């Protein structure tokens, strides 16, 4: 059975104790977002997730979306839940107040997102895409477009999509064919086919706003000839209501491994009316605003699913009795001991827990940078934050989603055969989590982005935002033996970074061969750093903790587990990286 209650204590720990939310909100000019306010928002969001979204998760998966004659119906209960979602203002949390948003910091927004992903990933996709689309529109759209669309999208009346993929172009968007023809009135006519469009058609909102990538007639070949257009399902009337149907139709929905309550559509644009967003041929720039935000959100999807998997597995491990503890019966009065007594079950639970809490702490760190890059007063701080987001985006996206799948599979294993059958909902988590490794840039591409683009940029400047604070922390705590494992793995990461930077100058394939291992290594060290800091905070708080001693003690223990059992993987990864591409690339293509 899927068990989920928002991990509020841990979220508060991450926000207030680890990342000092009070200092953070002061720096971004929002001192009124006090700890109490944040806590009450998290609490309400937690209730919404558990009470409204979680119950629809398994049923939505069972029922799926239905397609009939161009219309897509979401599973039972989604329309009502979405209505409550909008009424609660959950979609407008971190949006710009100028267009009706609440303007709350991303550090709060990302925690709420995590809860929604934990409770119901399919549902979360609808408002999630809308949020991404508002960011792109806000960053690059004309005032006219912004006024006409943003308020309705932010309050959830209208939803958004991003239309990139076409049958012949996935990762390589330079192959795009959809075309846009300029009209005398300044609008464009968009024609072409798009596939894999999440939330491209559904019955939750009165209108759907597509952000579509297409080519202008005189566009240069390849990725430098792609522009972004806003194409609404219904053309708004003068008073802003949905008017005439635009030339975009849903021709089918995909039948997928998981995420069944989310409509993945094929869209056909036939001379659909659209407007340019951003500059001609600079569509990728506009899209990247959205994609960077989306990639972090997708990372959080992985984290969210893993949290539910953890809670469900922990519940089952304490509930299910089977066999006896290896060192002798722990519950002699019962027919058998609960399986949580077994080291291997413990291994699974501790592993999931250590990763999940580490990822939450890391997403909190990245979220502070999301706030700082737009809201810090000092332009130097803004630039530093932007650099940091640039380097951490591929790490968070790929690491969190790889873990989301690995950990939910590990949680399923705790259930044994009961995990494999549908009744307990564990196999749904595995299926749902799998897509996160693929969409918004497959994880292999994230790794390439990290080593090929982000690492060498400005002679490694993006790396600074990560490496400097970690090095400083290690230097400050050189006397603390608990920091040693981090120091060791960090030194290996430095070596691996310098190694890849050097070898890839001569042979880009070496960078490609090292990329995935390097990203994981980077991610492990990042989590190791979060855990080392968390342990430090916990150790400081423990002596004076009243009712919270158990929480801090568990933090310290889990930190130790991470350092003992998970962080050492960095050594193996560094060995793999050093081995280079030779054996990977040696076989002739025909030998496969």
């Amino acid at each position: 059975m899927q068990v989920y209650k928002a991990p509020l204590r841990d979220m508060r720990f991450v926000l207030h104790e680890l990342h000092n939310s009070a200092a953070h909100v002061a720096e971004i000019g929002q001192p009124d977002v006090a700890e109490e306010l944040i806590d009450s928002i998290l609490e309400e969001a937690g209730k919404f997730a558990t009470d409204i979204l979680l119950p629809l998760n398994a049923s939505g998966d069972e029922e799926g979306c239905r397609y009939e004659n161009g219309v897509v119906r979401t599973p039972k209960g989604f329309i009502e839940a979405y209505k409550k979602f909008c009424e609660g203002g959950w979609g407008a949390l971190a949006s710009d107040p100028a267009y009706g948003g609440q303007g709350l910091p991303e550090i709060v927004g990302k925690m709420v997102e995590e809860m929604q992903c934990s409770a119901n990933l399919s549902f979360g996709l609808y408002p999630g895409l809308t949020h991404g689309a508002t960011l792109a529109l806000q960053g690059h759209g004309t005032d006219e477009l912004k006024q006409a669309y943003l308020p309705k999208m932010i309050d959830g009346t209208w939803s958004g999509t991003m239309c990139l993929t076409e049958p012949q172009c996935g990762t390589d968007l330079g192959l795009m064919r959809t075309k846009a023809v300029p009209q005398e009135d300044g609008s464009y006519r968009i024609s072409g086919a798009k596939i894999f469009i999440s939330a491209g058609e559904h019955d939750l909102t009165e209108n759907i706003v597509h952000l579509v990538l297409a080519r202008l007639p005189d566009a240069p070949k390849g990725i430098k000839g792609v522009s972004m257009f806003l194409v609404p399902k219904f053309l708004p009337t003068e008073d802003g209501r949905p008017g005439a149907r635009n030339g975009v139709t849903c021709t089918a929905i995909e039948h997928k491994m998981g995420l069944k309550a989310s409509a993945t559509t094929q869209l056909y644009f036939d001379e659909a009316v659209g407007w340019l967003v951003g500059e001609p041929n600079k569509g990728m720039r506009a899209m990247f605003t959205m994609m960077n935000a989306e990639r972090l959100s997708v990372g959080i999807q992985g984290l969210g699913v893993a949290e539910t998997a953890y809670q469900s597995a922990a519940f089952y491990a304490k509930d299910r009795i089977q066999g006896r503890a290896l060192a002798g019966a722990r519950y002699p009065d019962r027919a058998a001991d609960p399986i949580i007594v077994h080291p291997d079950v413990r291994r699974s639970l501790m592993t999931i827990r250590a990763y999940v809490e580490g990822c939450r702490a890391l997403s909190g760190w990245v979220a502070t940078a999301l706030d700082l890059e737009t809201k810090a007063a000092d332009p130097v701080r803004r630039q530093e934050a932007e650099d940091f987001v640039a380097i951490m985006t591929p790490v968070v996206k790929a690491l969190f989603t790889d873990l989301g799948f690995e950990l939910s599979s590990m949680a399923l294993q705790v259930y044994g055969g009961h995990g494999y059958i549908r009744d307990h909902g564990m196999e749904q988590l595995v299926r749902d989590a799998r897509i996160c490794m693929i969409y918004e840039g497959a994880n292999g591409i994230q790794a390439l982005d990290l080593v090929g683009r982000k690492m060498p940029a400005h002679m490694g400047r993006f790396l600074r935002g990560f490496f400097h604070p970690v090095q400083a922390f290690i230097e400050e705590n050189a006397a603390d033996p608990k920091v040693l494992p981090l120091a060791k793995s960090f030194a290996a990461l430095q070596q691996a970074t310098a190694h890849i930077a050097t070898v890839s100058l001569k042979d880009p394939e070496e960078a490609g061969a090292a990329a995935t291992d390097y990203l994981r290594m980077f991610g492990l060290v990042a989590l190791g750093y979060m855990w080392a800091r968390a342990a430090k905070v916990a150790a400081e708080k423990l002596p004076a903790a009243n009712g919270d001693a158990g929480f801090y003690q568990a933090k310290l223990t889990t930190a130790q587990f991470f350092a003992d059992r998970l962080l050492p993987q960095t050594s193996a990864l560094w060995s793999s990286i050093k081995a280079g591409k030779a054996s990977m690339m040696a076989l002739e293509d025909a030998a496969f």
Partner: protein
Amino acid sequence: MAEMFTKVAVIGSGVMGCGIAAQIANAGVRVLLLDILPREGSNRRAVAEGAIAKALKTDPAPFMSAAAARLIEAGNIEDDLARVAECDWIVEVVVERLDIKQTLYRRLEAVRRPGTPISSNTSTIPLSQLTEGLPERFTRDFMITHFFNPPRYMRLMELVTGPHTDATLADKIALFCDVALGKSVVNCKDSPGFIANRLGVFWMTGAVTQTIEHGLTIEEADAVMGRPFGVPKTGVFGLMDLVGLDLMPHVNASMAGALPENDEFHAINRDIPIIGRLIETGYTGRKGKGGFYRLNKTGGKRVKETLDFATGEYRPERRAELPELVAAGRDLRALMSAPGRVGAYAWAVMGHTMAYAAKLIPEATDEIVAIDEAMRLGYNWKHGPFELIDMVGADWLIERLHAEGFAVPPMLQRAAGRSFYRVQNGIRQQLGQDGEYTDIVRPHGILMLEDIKLAAKPVLKNGSASVWDIGDGVLCFEFTSKSNSLDEQIMALLGKTIALVKKEYKALVIYNEGSNFSVGANLGLALFAANIAAWMQVESLIATGQEMMQKLKYAPFPVVSAPSGMALGGGCEFLLHSDAVQAHAETYAGLVECGVGLLPGWGGCKEMLGRWASDPKMPKGPMPAPAKVFEMVSTAKVAKSAAEAREMLVLRPSDRVTMNRYRLLADAKRRALELAADYKAPEPREIVLPGPSGRVALNQAVAGFAKLGMATTHDVVVSGELATVLTGGDTDIIDTVKEGKILDLERESFMRLLRTPGTLARIEHMLETGKPLRN
């Protein structure tokens, strides 16, 4: 060796005359610079004096030092002409008019010492005409010495002798120009335009007319003609803007008038009305309002614009995007064969220029190597035309000329089935007119690594450096890294080299044939290491460098550094730790680390302090030396010549200067062997430094500059660390400071600076833009 002249007369003080006079003065030889009387005013030397004053303000500077300018004495041809009798050589650089030149020659004939060589710098008048009607005692002493503009920097000198010219005299002038003035002397026949301009004008004219013909934009033409063919990236149009558009019609008319009717030049030379219009409206190039390119400053903005041949108007500069260039890569044959206008253009210009070069044998010279050298040094081509033909293949060129109905010059035909150059038994050979290959023989006393490499393997080698045996027990350490930047590998190989020389050799020379000796430490690596907080790695590189520099200095054998071009930062520190420096005159040395927010960390501070502290001209006390070094290092001062480096004490009085780039290695080797004869390693030096009170004084001075807006926020941080090092840190004024202590201070301050965001931003900015960041 060259018999040094004690005084040379230069008549005519225009840009070329004054430039030649300056270069002679740069060689330490007195000059009598004469010009006509001024039209007005009472100062009868005003014309030549004015020219010298102007030259002192010209950039790039014709003079290597202010002292050189003082070797020139100004005069006029009415009062002072008789004083040419004091001179060992008379150079005529007056206006290009035969009657004026001949009148001058006749007047000179009356006053000069008999047997004094006279030469003209003419570029357009044949020697036969210049000497027509003059007595044999004049023609025997007469020749053409054709320098290129600017004479200090252009290494080519074309020497033309007549049938009566005394060969001994010509050799004497050639040797003086070679050894004293640093020129590469190319012997030419008395034919129009000699070599470089004959071919250069043909090439430029073709490049312009064919651009119009094939409908290329100016940017496209320069992109095709520039980098791919190893021509300076200014390309043709950029070059014409530089030399002046107004010159082109004159030069072309003179060339057209002088060349026989069947010369190919006539086929490509035509009147280009738009150039006439540009000249008329003041668009004469960079000296005027602009040329083919201009900077439009209207409306407060600075917009780079380019002339559009189609409209005759200027439009914003557009970067050329030519897939043909990408596709061809380094394959010139592929470029010249590419379908479409780009390939057609490349062929039309370069194919015909190559053929024309072959035709200049035997018209302009008998040796292909003379033509290649003239184009390399006179037009800064990376490869001469015959080297280019070898790259595309003589057979291919012949075939294509045939196919298109063009004549194939006999010299080109001779290369059919083979190449113009080859290497035989480790010696480079050239194809002669008899169809035989002969060794290319360098003038006496020249030693080149380039030649040694043809016949030998390096004694030691890694990815960033090589070591060569240059004979007589001397090893040569060569940097081979990108821009000769200094890295771990160089230090590692240096360690091995020192051990090897100690065991088996007599001396070490540090030298290379790159355009710059070294631009300093590899900043890209340092920045990347800093960005990933690999502080230990950086610190160990600093420590290793310091250790190597100390080893170099105290090695039991002499070390001679022989720089040319830039020797900056770590490159300069190599010079400072050598027993002797044999510097090319065009050496630009300095400790520039502060420009990127760092300070000299390989002993540069230590050595400069030692030099200034022991300079007899300095006032007594511990403060003057640090103050002097602080002034130079904090402002990242670079010497603009070896002579200036001497003034900065980067070179010591005992260090020597070589004028000719080709002679540098031989001179350095000779110096190393001299030192090896009775070598004793130097004694470690201890100096007295002022300590904290001195630091406070230097910091106050910087604070004052900061207040005036002359020092930036980060300048204050950087110079604060520099002040700490130069004043000896916490040392007490009554103690002496050992070298090791200063090195520790250098290293600590360097590491502190590298951790500041201001320094990281400076390094990044320098690497990405090539310009210093003033943060």
